[in-house]
């Protein structure tokens, strides 16, 4: 028997969360971020964090890496938020601390939702899902570039660092010397990324990526009625949340 050409597309998912349609994971991530902006109180935000970030992360067996990365990403903004709210808040210190907790929680939730999505979504699967659901290839291209660019950028940064080290850049020197070398690292990384996107655009154009109409999806998503209902529930919930926030009916 001949071996199937697309053997890898039939691979099994690492967890039930990984096995969901990538569009569902995208809607959960975006919905969580928007809800984190709309909700105000610590209790509501904590509930959102548990329900929309911690539970899916545990389901995906990604608790440690996602939390670690989310905290690392949230740290700089979180520290500034604490300093500003505790030291310069017009109310009492406890009010400032409470406000700081809300801001920090919000940032951690948003970072967590983003990291979970990135760690559990293969760009090719996302493209397949968006195409399957009828999204235009131009929009798919933009979303795909945004998702695929981050790991490529990290890889390019590692390559540039290795190249600059070969030219004498000391990446283990003092903070000041490393700071001075940052332009030598950042400039080729960013310029290289821009050039790469341009070359990739040419390659995709020449392979009819922007052709309108249905394309044949090589990686069809594992969608279900339950997931569809879940996605629409999130959208309806967000609309309700916006209305409640605007009309002042939101309890927290």
């Amino acid at each position: 028997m001949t071996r199937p050409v697309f053997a890898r597309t039939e691979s099994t998912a690492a967890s039930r969360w990984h096995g969901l349609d990538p569009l569902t994971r995208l809607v959960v991530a975006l919905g969580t971020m928007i809800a984190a902006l709309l909700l105000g109180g610590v209790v509501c935000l904590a509930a959102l964090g548990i329900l929309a970030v911690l539970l899916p992360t545990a389901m995906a067996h990604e608790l440690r890496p996602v939390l670690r990365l989310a905290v690392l990403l949230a740290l700089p903004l979180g520290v500034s938020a604490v300093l500003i709210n505790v030291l310069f808040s017009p109310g009492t210190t406890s009010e400032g601390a409470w406000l700081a907790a809300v801001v920090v929680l919000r940032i951690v939730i948003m970072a967590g939702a983003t990291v979970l999505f990135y760690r559990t979504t293969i760009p090719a699967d996302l493209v397949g899902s968006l195409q399957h659901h009828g999204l235009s290839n131009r929009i798919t291209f933009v979303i795909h570039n945004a998702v695929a660019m981050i790991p490529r950028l990290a890889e390019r940064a590692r390559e540039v660092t290795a190249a600059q080290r070969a030219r004498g850049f000391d990446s283990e020197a003092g903070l000041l010397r490393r700071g001075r070398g940052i332009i030598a690292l950042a400039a080729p990384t960013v310029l290289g990324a821009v050039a790469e996107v341009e070359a990739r655009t040419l390659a995709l154009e020449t392979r009819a990526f922007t052709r309108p109409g249905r394309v044949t999806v090589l990686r069809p998503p594992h969608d279900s009625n339950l997931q569809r209902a879940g996605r629409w529930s999130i959208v309806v919930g967000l609309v309700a949340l916006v209305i409640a926030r605007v009309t002042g009916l939101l309890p927290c």
Partner: protein
Amino acid sequence: MLNLRAVSYRYAGARRECLHGIDLDLVEGAVTGLVGPAEAGKSSLCLVAGGLAPRVVGGHLSGQVGIDGASVADWPMYRLAEEVTTAVQDPAGQLSLIGQSVAEEVALGPANLGLPRGEIEARTAWALAVTGIEALAERDPLRLSGGQQQLVVLAGLLAMRPRHLVLDEPLAHLDAGGAKVVLDAVRAAADAGAAVLLAEQRTDELARVADTVLLMSAGNIVAGGAPREILSHPTAHALGVAEPAGAALRRRLRAAGFDPDLVEVDA
């Protein structure tokens, strides 16, 4: 047939044109080689013939680019891509990042054309076989060598079964074995009816596959004809185009007073 009539082209932001009044016919079933020194305009001509300039890269084009006599100026890129496919120089940059495996990367074009899955699988298997990379089918394209990536890109273009194939230095990252695979694939595409434009510095290899060769200099086509004639032409030498080893041997035999036709050489 892809035709260029009095085509001049200037990149966006450039003051001078890099192509001047180019006339070119890409004939189905034939490989047209393109040689010339650096900055001669070979890559620009590939971009124009492939429809990427000015559609995607910008700039200003005058004259007419047409297929079977009809202008393609108003065609969107996706429509043109069904007729002409182009490979530019950098193989890694041409990988889509969408395909998680070599097979998916090769299948991307046919999938974009909306072909049935069975047809996509058949074309992909054929393209992988023609380029000799069946063993790489499940590998991550980003983890391959430059030469292997070049073959993946070529396989991706062949899988689209284009009527016209434009290749800008496809042998740049390849060793002798890889170059032979590419040349055989190019010849097979031409024999199957495709019109191929092949810009290449490696004249030994070009002489083996091209039916005609065009010599470019400073944005103009200055000579055109049979590979043996053009690649051993004094103008080509003056421009720094490497003479194929076979042609060099013939010239030296002639200079030494021997009849070169008594010796059998490839080019």
